[in-house]
């Protein structure tokens, strides 16, 4: 059977034009997707049933048992942490938030280790952005800053930017100027019209310099800023000012390098400044398929996009204090529920190590590095493969992930709902 217009749940691009061929409840062929999509759909090995750690290894347990024990662990905790959420759908995320408010937990999503700094910057200065189609149809200047979409978002350039045929840019690549800014020459840099090589940690200074130049204060700028010549900076500023529609995309090279959110803030303020001359937008390249959805769901339910602490009953937010990495690093939490993510692989070692010291439960379709730190692992559906639900693309466009096959696993939302019910004395949210 051929399934058309399937959404790839892997990265924030959420390409929705895949063609999947299924045969007897198995996916046998993936078309239109990139290699990451292919491995998402094809390499999908899961545990057959929930497992629990024993003295010597692991034992299989029933779903009911696993759910009951998870509820008990959470109920007994004084500072439970609910973390992850970026690879599942909004329906599961929303139940997660309800659990957190019910038991006074901290709930956080993977923004903590990717674009949390972008969110902090946006909270300081706002976010001049747009949907990706605006860029595709209009942009004649495209800047990738600290980002390597060729590797991390393989179809970003062909679907939305550089190579996409747009209404006002029918000649696509030939009508667009592509600027890449990075500390090293990446694959993306190789296709750029202009490559700006910055010294490590120099992004902030370069943004400041560009802002000053755009404001007419070029005379203050020294001959070189973080390894970039003043001539090149002035040239870049001119290209930007002359653009009909410019778009900046940035990645972890910017959010996770020295200065973190101040880098992003400065990038946004440059964009703001450029809007006084022409049209300019800026957007983070969000990584996990539905990480932006977790920000959206958290926000309408709690008021905050990530790192929400319900310990006092009300919602409190203060990244650096209420973020999962920080709570783990300080050894604060005494139980953890990890859903649809892999902190065991992505967190600093000291933070991940604490997970092994406390009762940790993983709800995830796949065995991952966190499984090794956990007490219980409950396998479930994978959103976009055998479960339908809502995901938000990196630009905020909500897309419905499809259920392509049925593998007989329970939906994570269903598992979470049962945990919620147990914690709430049998009552639904």
């Amino acid at each position, binding site marked *: 059977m051929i399934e058309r217009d399937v959404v790839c749940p892997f990265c924030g691009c959420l390409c929705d034009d895949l063609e999947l061929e299924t045969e007897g409840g198995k996916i046998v062929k993936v078309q239109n997707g990139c290699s990451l999509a292919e491995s998402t759909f094809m390499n999908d090995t899961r545990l057959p049933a929930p497992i629990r750690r024993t003295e010597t290894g692991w034992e299989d347990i029933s779903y009911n048992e696993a759910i009951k024990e998870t509820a008990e662990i959470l109920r007994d905790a004084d500072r439970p942490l609910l973390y992850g959420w970026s690879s599942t759908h909004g329906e599961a995320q929303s139940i997660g938030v309800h659990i957190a408010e019910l038991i006074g937990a901290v709930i956080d999503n993977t923004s903590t280790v990717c674009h949390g700094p972008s969110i902090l910057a946006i909270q300081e200065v*706002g976010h001049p952005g747009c*949907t990706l189609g605006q860029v595709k149809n209009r942009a004649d200047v495209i800047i990738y800053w600290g980002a390597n979409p060729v590797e991390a978002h393989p179809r970003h350039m062909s679907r939305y930017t550089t190579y996409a045929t747009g209404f006002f840019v029918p000649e696509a690549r030939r009508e667009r100027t592509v600027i890449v800014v990075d500390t090293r020459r990446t694959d993306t840099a190789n296709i750029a019209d202009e490559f700006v090589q910055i010294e490590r940690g120099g992004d902030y200074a370069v943004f400041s310099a560009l802002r000053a130049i755009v404001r007419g204060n070029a005379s203050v700028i020294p001959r070189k800023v973080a390894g970039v010549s003043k001539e090149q900076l002035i040239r870049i500023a001119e290209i930007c000012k002359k653009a009909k529609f410019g778009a900046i995309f940035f990645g972890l090279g910017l959010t996770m390098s020295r200065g973190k959110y101040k880098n992003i803030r400065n990038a946004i303020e440059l964009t703001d400044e450029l809007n*006084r001359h022409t049209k300019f937008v800026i957007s983070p390249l969000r990584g996990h398929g539905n990480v932006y959805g977790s920000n959206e769901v958290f926000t309408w339910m*709690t008021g905050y996009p990530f790192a929400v602490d319900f310990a006092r009953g009300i919602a409190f937010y203060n990244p650096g204090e209420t973020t999962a990495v920080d709570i783990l690093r300080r050894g604060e939490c005494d139980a953890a529920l990890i859903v649809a993510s892999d902190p065991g692989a992505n967190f600093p070692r000291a933070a991940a190590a604490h997970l092994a010291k406390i009762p940790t439960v993983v709800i995830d379709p796949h065995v991952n590095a966190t499984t090794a730190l956990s007490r219980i692992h409950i396998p479930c559906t994978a959103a976009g493969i055998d479960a339908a639900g809502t995901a938000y693309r990196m630009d905020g466009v909500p897309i419905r992930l499809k259920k392509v096959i049925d593998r007989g696993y329970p939906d994570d939302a269903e598992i979470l709902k049962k945990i919620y019910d147990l914690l709430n004395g049998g009552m639904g949210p």
Partner: protein
Amino acid sequence: MTELWVKNACVIDPIRGINGDIMDIAIRDGRIVESVSDRAEVIDAERCLTLPGGIDSHTHVSGTKVNFGRYMSPEDMRAGRTKRKGKMHVTSGYYVPTTFGNSYRYSAMGYTTLLEGAMAPLEARHTHEEFTATPHQDMMANTLFDGNWAVMDAVREKDIRKTAAVVAWTLKAARGYGIKLTNPGGTEAWGWGEDLTGIHDTVPHFAVTPAEIITTMIRANELLKLPHSVHLHCNNLGKPGNYQTTLETFELVPDLNDARQTLYATHVQFHAYGGGTWKNICSKAEEITRLVNSKPQIVMDMGQIMFGRTMTMTADGPMEFNLHCLHNNKWSNHDVELETGSGIIPVTYSKKSTVNCIMWAIGLELALLTKNPWQCLLETDNPNGAPFVKYPEVIGLLMSKRYRDEECAALHAGTEQKTSLYALEREMDWHDIAVMTRAGQAKALGIVSQGKGHLGVGAEADIAIYPIRTDSVDPAREYRKVVEGFQKTRYTIKRGRVVSRDGEIIVDGANATFWVDAKVPEDIRMENDPEFIKRFEQFYTVRMSNYPVQDVYLPRGRCIETEAFT
């Protein structure tokens, strides 16, 4: 079968011509009936003011833009935080509260139906998700068409039928309720960082003008027999001298519908400015209302501002950027491909600013100078002019000259000469307020026939009982009591269930979402138009098959079908 018997209610029900009669209301299974059995649960209203549930015909509570307002405002979330309690979820925020915050606070004020003022079709799914999390009000969404490429193409071709077909297809896909035009044409121009300066400017690359978009959409709207009229946010919002544009726009409006207005002009306060700069800005409310008084086909809402901190958010991207250049605070912008734009910035309206004082005065002038209260509804364009929790204060101001005088005394000295407010003696009565907060909205939105905005037999039992005894309160003097009375109902009844009591939510909500399916003839349906399909697949970034909102997003959807073109 559940039955409820509300006795001793002092009912004002303008649609049925009831004004302060003491009566009983019988409710069975969510609807108002002639009588109930003696097993019915009884509520004694004790002669308190009892109105149909409040209806907000223009508010921003759900969707991409609203949520971004929250996302960027942790500082606001610190205000208005409440814990989980009984059936109530945690809430945060004052001017951009969480969905539950919105829902509970509206419910406490007796509001049972809300129209979200702006939904971009591409992001409609998001709006509907938040509707589900706004459980105590029935919801509907104005759908944005101001910069819709297919609409502008059809308008350029002067093809009203095709315009209507695009609207019908899009409304259905977005599960939208009515047509919203926000700065028509201007949001497309903003795709290039430009704006339009009047209704006869040409939209870049599209060779149409706002005037053409507005008039064609009005005709298409009526061809589709949509329950609501075109809902317009005029061009040039917030610019000194913009009243000319507003008057010119109003002059374009024919009278095409016997049952309701032909144009709903929203937040007109922001569109009633004289002068040419921020220095010489003045009120043109008299000019605007003079025209509206002579044109029954126009209904407007006030767009009242109230002093304090709030957030402006609108599809009008260029306007928000201009405002940002004045305030230099944070600014978000979100243009939506082939459809519309949006912008968000926080503002503080201050009594120290003459401009803000004049704005405050204009909203009240508009209401007080419009002879027929059915033509000027009470809103703040929540949260743009003020968060909706300020409505009771607006009511107080409309009902009491003394309250206005006291407020005026604290305003910037320059205000008096620039407006006519200080001289206006009119004090609205309870009936006027009932019109301006529910009956007028129900009529304007075309939902009277859905059982909204009145308490006749067959109506939905959405009822607000306020702790106000109209026979013993003199609103002109005791305006504080009026304000307090409207802040918290004694009971808010939603579809026959008491949902809120003395400001506290006591049950889980189960709202409905109204949307419109306008059936156009087979041969002009967009899903059969190869050119439309081709352009869609080429220029949108989602596949056409993934665009329509699936039914699962409207667990309690209520579709209003119309037979268009007949």
